[in-house]
């Protein structure tokens, strides 16, 4: 019976480049592979992606498997699960890592059930147990109020990794590796979905995931119009505007603003939380921030447990005054 060996990562491609998550999980995969004394490989699935294999090698992969087919241009569950099933059964990796992304949240569970194994989603930490040699998976549960460590012995051991939880390796363009093509071999009649349209609702300006400064509003803002003072503050600071879940769900701000467990994960230098209670689900998205500053009229709000500095009071009076002082200090 063939043996499961090696660490494999599912690489994501965005706008003709490797998505940031890919380098992050390669960094994580490299550590696990080193601990096991095994190889690290990456899988790239899509259409017109051949050129990106070398980039995956530059970020640490020893081997890259490329599945390039016009039918794979858009992510669809049926085609991507079938392709990954084929790749895994050919390569037999001991560990398979994916990103906790829009694709990962859909692909990983279905693939784990297809392969009759298991997957731990949204992991913050992965390690090899020195005794069992199995992967220990640490993930947030109860909205982020607790963390759970899982282990299991079905293979491949699968995990999705939270964005920004792991560090990429230094890019090394001189790194050498092996590139292998695998035929997709999809029967189009087995794809039971059809992508009709893709709509981007990204706001112009700095992307939240990349912003060094974020001003974020919560339920306490009360309306979409009330985000204008936050936008002014963000402009003065050279930052971006985000929100917790209620403003996005209520349609006060675009859904792209939503930071949290089921929204974006950000790790800016400065995170200013205005009218945000600090529920664990929201903190899951912003706890990686270097400095959290909270403004809330409830002195008992949970956000003050996560923040470094805070002011208790009404944002209607505090924000304009804060913005003015910031402009003064920054010479604007």
């Amino acid at each position, binding site marked *: 019976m063939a043996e499961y060996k090696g660490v494999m990562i599912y690489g994501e491609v965005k706008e003709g480049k490797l998505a940031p998550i890919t380098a992050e999980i390669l960094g994580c995969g490299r550590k696990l592979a080193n601990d096991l004394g095994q190889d690290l490989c990456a899988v790239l699935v899509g259409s017109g992606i051949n050129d990106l294999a070398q980039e995956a090698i530059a970020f640490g992969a020893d081997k890259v498997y490329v599945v390039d087919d016009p039918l794979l241009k*858009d992510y*669809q569950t049926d085609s991507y699960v079938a392709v990954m099933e084929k790749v895994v059964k050919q390569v037999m990796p001991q560990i398979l890592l994916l990103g906790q*992304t*829009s694709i990962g*949240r859909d692909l990983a*569970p*279905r693939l*784990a*059930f*297809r392969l009759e*194994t*298991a*997957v731990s*989603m949204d992991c913050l930490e992965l390690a090899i147990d020195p005794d069992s040699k199995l992967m220990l998976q640490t993930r*947030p*549960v*109860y*909205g982020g109020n*607790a*963390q*759970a*460590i*899982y282990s*299991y012995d*079905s293979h491949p051991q699968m995990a999705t990794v939270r964005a920004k939880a792991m560090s990429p390796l230094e890019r090394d363009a001189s790194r050498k590796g092996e590139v292998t093509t695998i035929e997709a071999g999809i029967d189009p009649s087995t794809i*039971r*979905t059809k992508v*009709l*349209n*893709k709509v981007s*609702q990204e706001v112009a300006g700095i992307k939240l995931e990349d912003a060094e400064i974020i001003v974020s509003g919560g339920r306490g803002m009360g309306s979409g119009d009330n985000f204008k003072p936050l936008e002014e503050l963000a402009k003065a600071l050279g930052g971006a505007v985000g929100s917790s879940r209620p403003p996005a*769900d209520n349609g006060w701000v675009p*859904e*792209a603003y939503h930071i949290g*467990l*089921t929204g974006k994960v950000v790790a800016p230098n*400065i995170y200013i939380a205005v009218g945000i209670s*600090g*529920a664990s689900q929201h903190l899951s998205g912003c706890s990686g921030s270097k400095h959290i*500053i*909270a403004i809330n009229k409830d002195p008992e709000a*949970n956000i003050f*447990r*996560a923040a*470094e*500095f*805070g*002011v*208790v*009071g009404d944002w209607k*009076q*505090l*924000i*304009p*005054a*804060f913005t*003015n*002082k*910031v402009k003064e*200090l920054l010479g604007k």
Partner: protein
Amino acid sequence: MNVIVCVKQINDPEAPPSSFKVDSATNKVVPPPGVPPVISPYDEQAVEAALRIKDAQGGKVTALSMGANLTRDVVKKPLAMGADELVLLDDEAFAEGDSWSTAYALAMAIKKIGEYDLVFCGRQAGDWDAGQVGSGIAEILGLPSITIARKIDITDGKAKVERVTADGYEVVEISLPAVITVTSELGEPRYPNIKGIMAAKRKEPTIWKPADIGVDPSQIGNTGRRTKLMKLFQPIREGECEIVGGESPEEAAANLALKLREAKIL
């Protein structure tokens, strides 16, 4: 249209974080005192999605829940919202499963229910947050699936679904029967009205034990798990928050800016 909606009873995830406690000896969460359990929030949205389809197309909505000693008032909420039937897998053997054993038991119950065009689930449960059971049910039953749906419309015997993506959404058509997991961007679930509450009170749920759905206790719940929970713990949050004050809100705000400048943050 016949829609089956899976709903899970959990500790209230909106309970204040300060009331959250883990018993590290048993790797279990201590239910917050005096806070009744609820239907997992995303599952409520799944019920709402099903009721919107019933409003538009007619048909039947069957709620399906699973656990041990389920609180009838809690699991009857879908009926109060407008669902027609309630099926409960209520037995110790069903409890404390992982994504695999949970999806397996629910899939077998759905097989027994028999007639359906759609199966809806919340995108993830408000306790374990795994987000796998919907996809797992689909895989076990051999059905197509879409996750993280914020809008579902039925046209020409197919579902047209808006799926939330990182930078917006995509519109995907899926053949029926299918499994769809629902996200909060769908909108507020409707409040039960008096008529619904009275109907729910009168309605007797169908209760099934493992033998009724043709599963062995060893394949379900805690015994049927594929994964092992090694440890459950509360991460310790370090650091104190420095509250900045002032004679007036304006002064406090200015002091905050000065504090940040002093700390070299600004």
